């Protein structure tokens, strides 16, 4: 296990092992001294760049779907390369095989037409608000503040950050264990390489060199990627998800984790790119599930993204920054097997600002429902996590009774 650049968790962890916990809890009002930490697990997939919810879960039963979506509309369920049906109106993207299997076994729910509490179409701003849980950028995230109120948070790392740095969502007063493999081996998504090659084209040396390198790697913009010869390389995010599963499964391991996946900003060539992106997400979920083992029973997994994308296809076979999208809720603790949505429709006058899926539910309400009913936070704890969120009461009925 390697802790990259985050020396504090390493030090506090070592201190805890040395029995120095008391020194760290002194001067703190420990909320439940001696109370055992929960057995419940909560994992958030943070999808940076704005996942197109209408592609991940397509409302193929909506009469306006095909006309708005054009080439982005996938074939009906039951046809070749078609959607994976979710009960007659919605269909999962065919890359989401694992999610579909979980849905069929009652371990997955889709929450559609959900959005954050903000109406920003700026990635950075919206990600900050999504992670902070309030309408301004502050230095701590809602999930960390939630963890800080949990029994045992003062004496052990209940939260796990995977990847190179802790996301804002997990920064704050509560101790966080950080994990990243020594050789992370992440490289940018094809889209970022593509943006960069546009800039590099200005340069007579860097431009051609970058193009040649990308072509060698099969990532050249506009060029279909050939299949990897031999054994397919495991995507780094899948490695992170598997590791998170192992660590969360341990009896004394962390209970809450965040796994970040970037590359969702599909302004162009969305069909191909989402196929790859969603396959990574699906494989990450499968890896997490497999490595959690028995602990899956006590687990809730939530996907969040900063906003949805435009309902209409744009001029470059992609979609632009929008408003409402969808969230996946998975795990043995989830009351799954259905889509939960107050469907706003895609028809005339039904779109937010005549362009985006209209929000009908608040991500904070979903998160608060999980924090309250799964992790046991009381009203004060919820207020600590999401200050001033009275307009978004905890959503009930998400979990198995």
């Amino acid at each position, binding site marked *: 296990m390697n802790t990259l*650049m985050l020396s504090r968790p390493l030090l506090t962890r070592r201190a805890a092992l040395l029995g120095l916990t008391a020194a760290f809890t002194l001067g703190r009002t420990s909320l439940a001294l001696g109370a055992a930490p929960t057995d419940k697990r909560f994992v958030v997939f943070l999808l*940076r760049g704005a996942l197109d919810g209408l592609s991940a879960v397509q409302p193929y039963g909506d009469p306006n779907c095909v006309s708005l979506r054009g080439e982005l509309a996938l074939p009906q369920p039951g046809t070749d390369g078609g959607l994976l049906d979710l009960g007659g109106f919605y269909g999962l993207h065919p890359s989401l095989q694992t999610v579909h299997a979980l849905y069929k076994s009652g371990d997955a729910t889709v929450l559609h037409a959900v959005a954050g509490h903000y109406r920003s179409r700026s*990635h950075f701003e919206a990600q900050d608000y999504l992670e902070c849980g309030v309408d301004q950028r502050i230095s701590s995230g809602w999930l960390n503040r939630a963890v800080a109120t949990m029994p045992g948070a003062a004496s052990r790392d209940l939260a796990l950050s995977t*990847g190179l740095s802790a996301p804002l969502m997990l920064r704050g007063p509560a101790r966080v264990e950080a994990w990243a493999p020594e050789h992370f081996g992440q490289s*940018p998504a094809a889209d970022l390489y593509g943006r960069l090659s*546009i800039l590099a084209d200005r340069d007579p040396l860097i*431009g051609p060199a970058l193009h040649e390198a990308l072509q060698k790697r099969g990532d050249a913009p506009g060029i279909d990627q050939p299949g990897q010869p031999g054994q397919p390389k495991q995507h780094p995010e899948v490695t992170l998800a598997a590791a998170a599963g192992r660590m969360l499964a341990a009896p004394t391991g962390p209970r809450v984790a965040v796994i970040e996946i*970037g*590359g969702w900003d599909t302004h162009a060539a969305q069909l191909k790119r989402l196929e790859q992106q969603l396959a990574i997400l699906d494989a990450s979920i499968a890896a997490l599930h497999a490595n959690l083992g028995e602990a899956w029973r006590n687990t809730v997994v939530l996907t969040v993204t900063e906003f949805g994308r435009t309902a209409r296809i744009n001029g470059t076979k992609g979609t632009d920054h929008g408003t409402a999208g969808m969230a996946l809720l998975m795990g043995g603790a989830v009351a799954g097997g259905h889509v939960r949505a107050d469907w706003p429709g895609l028809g005339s006058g039904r779109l937010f600002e005549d362009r985006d899926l209209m929000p009908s539910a608040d991500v904070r309400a979903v998160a608060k429902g999980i924090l309250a009913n799964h992790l046991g936070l009381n009203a004060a704890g919820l207020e600590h996590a999401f200050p001033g969120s009275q307009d978004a009461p905890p959503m009930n009925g998400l979990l198995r009774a």
Partner: protein
Amino acid sequence: MDTNAAIAFSRFGLGRRRDEPVPADPHAWLRAQVNGPDTAPAGPTTAQGLAMIYDVIHMDRAAFPDPRQSPQVQAFNHVHHDESAALLGQAVTTPDGYRERLVWFWANHFTIAAVSRPSAACCGAYIREAIRPYVTGRFSDMLLAVMRHPAMLAYLNQNTSVGPNSLVGERKSRGLNENLARECLELHTVTPASGYTQTDVTNFAKILTGWTFRVDPENAGFFFQERAHEPGEQVVLGQTWPDGEQGGVMLLQYLADHPATHHHLAEKLVRHFVADDPAPADVAHIQAVLYKTHGDLHAASLALIDLPSAWQPLTKLRTPQEYVIAVLRAVGANPAYETQMPAVLKNLGQPLFGAPFPIGWPDRAADWAGPESIIQRVDFAYDFAGRVTDQEPATVAEQILGPLLEADTLGQIHGAGSRRDGLTLLLACPEFQRR
């Protein structure tokens, strides 16, 4: 920030630090660095480095089943790591980017690599003692300090070269090693353009016999070993040089102030700071300064600032070392980075104290713009951007590049899907890679 300030930070310096004040008069700012002192912190001395070797040689081997685990060997093994971090740390934090660039330029001119025990144990001390004090002094003084330094003597095998007719040579039937003599002529001073012959090389090697060093604590450092010195006068470049240590010193002073050396140094300096293919007039100007001042590097460093072509648009490509330093300066120093970057530089093909040949690292864009090399930078930028939080990429871009930042780069940064992507675009865009 105006264009001249941005050029001063990038062309002459190591890239702007975000918290660094923008100089109102970029020329004066650069001149002040040349006129001011070197601010690098002290570190282990050459004598201390040599003492480590002495300790390894004389440790009680019976006490350690595996000598690699002994504290003596462990201490020795740490030097390279510690010195790499210290060198990077200085480059990343210094407010005197131009002066530090000059240090790196001369250290590369007089390349050593940590491939022998003395050059590894003294790699940092070499720069502190043989390079830094002379960066704005006389070239002849730097040349002499380098040629007498144990790191160089060991790197180019001078310490094992023996005059065939010396006492040691006759008794042990050992002989010359021409390595240092040849590289001194070819790379450090007059270059083959001066027309030297193999006889010149051999005779120079004879003159340098006896130039060695000792590691025992009482005598650690350079040592002229009379018993290994080839007796007699020698002719090099048509001139006769006296016997003894003084002959070598005189020859080095002659080489340092040779017109061919001035030309070589002028061309390298202009190539490094101005353009891959330096304008002949620029080279001639710096050469004339060196000629008039008998190799005064202070005057040459000031003259570089005054070249009009040095204030034209940037065309040089940052080497991996310069690139990584600029990245660290742009996002803010962190001691953790400085200990991790040596491994990164190895991946990017330019390890610290690790040039493969005595000629040092190449200094033209084409040498560093291979497809794999360029994409490795992008991947490094992406990896690194993933470790940096709380920074607005667009703000950093404007702070670091100022007027050099192109509108479409800023547009792409604004449109990036995450801060990490935005920062990657800044760190990998062409205007950040040029200097």
